[in-house]
């Protein structure tokens, strides 16, 4: 049960991290198009 909860917390972190990474790339593209 504890292992499942830890796995779920790690999973949520991976998902949110991946999405923030996508946003970072989009921010970089925004920067390129505004210079």
């Amino acid at each position, binding site marked *: 049960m504890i292992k*499942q909860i830890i*796995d*779920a917390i*790690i*999973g*949520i972190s*991976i*998902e*949110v991290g*991946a*999405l*923030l990474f*996508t*946003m970072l*790339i*989009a*921010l970089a*593209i*925004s*920067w390129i*198009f*505004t210079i």
Partner: protein
Amino acid sequence: MIPRPQKEDFKVISYYLGKIVFGLGLMMLVPLALGLAYKETNPSLDFLISICITLSAGILLTIIGRTERDPNWMHGMVIVSLSWIVAMFLGAIPLHLSGHFKSYLDACFDSMSGFATTGLALVQDLDHISYSHNLWRHLIMFIGGQGIVIIALSFLVRGAAGAFRIYVGEAREEKILPNVISTSRFIWLVSITYLILGTAALAAVAVYEGMPIKNSIFHGVCVFMAAFDTGGFAPQSQNILYYHSFPFEIVTIVIMLLGAINFKLHYAIWSGNKTEIWRNIETITLFITIIATFIITAFGLKQFNTYPEVISFFRKGFYQLVSGHTGTGYMTIYAKQFIKEWGPLALVGVTIAMALGGSSCSTTGGIKTIRIGLIFKAMAQDIRRIILPEAAIVTDKFHHIKDIILDDKHVRSACLITLAYIALYGFGSLVGMCFGYPFLDSLFESTSAAANVGLSCGITVVDMPSLLKITYMFQMWAGRLEFVSVFTLVGFAIAAVKGK
């Protein structure tokens, strides 16, 4: 010769439809409870009336159709497509009674838009609607995003062998767990977990921005439900622009993207398969298409120098793009700005993003990225076949939770559904053009309706022609159910009339 449906067929459909309608009636207790807590007398009465009608309809249908038979594939498809229409009519009752809609048709439009997680709205004076009606608008998005039949499968249908057939009818062909009822419950587990986390994050940002705590929680719950279920309704008429908050926009982008991820992928990652997100064909395609369509949109915005600063470029350009791609429809600009400030290329970029949609077995609409990925894989395979010697055997595989050999049946199915979506986008555009709207505006709004997005360039207003409202309602319904169950319903109706 088409066999005419038997009395027993109608009984099975009626029985399960009754269960689903009953579940919908129970869901109406939530806004009723809120209305009573906030001492909203008239809105509470609206919901009491609606609950009585919905529960009575549910009980009546169940009694009429009482049967021990499990639904077959045809029953499952007909139950699903009918249940969405019935839910639209019943869900519109409290909305119409609120007095914020010009007609019952407008209330039905918002109801279908909510259940189909589209987000196009005809509600009037939204900023003064009651808390309970506002919660209902968002709750129907949550119900629709999870899948109306998911509610019935989770709580009302116990161990029915035919449950999977109803589940599939709602455009979810993938079972996450061996048992479809466990699958439904897992979908709820993911949604409730993110509901708690997402609401807390949104409410915290709202408090930080100066909103009272009570309002922050209400706005947090509503915005989460509409963002995670890629719906697009917001508690205020200015949509997300109302909050004027960069952190709030960042949180909603994350929630929208989470809603666009396949529930099967959530299960894999939550179960310890940490690398799946980087290997899965759906997430890879989603990532590539988001970046590609954003670059197209960025070129368009650059042409008109719409947003000269990097942060406003990101907050307006990327936000609308992600909102369109995930099928949410949240906006940080006014609808007319799309036409007046964005220019045609940026509009085309967002339209392509809307047309593609998010992952299958998620809450998004549109073609879905797995189909796009498969079509591109098949194209690459065909090019290799041409280049390599004739005797060479060319096989390819794709990764979706596990490695799967790319088969003609996968490609055929992906191409058929893609074609059906393109036809649906085109159909709505043609109807829009018949009413005198320009081509690009019509295509944008039609794609937004059919892909269950909700971004608007200004066509969807109360005074738009009724026939166009009905066209968009049909598009939302057919687009959400991915055609198969809709075609089955048409076939069933023809068989009932012409069959022998």
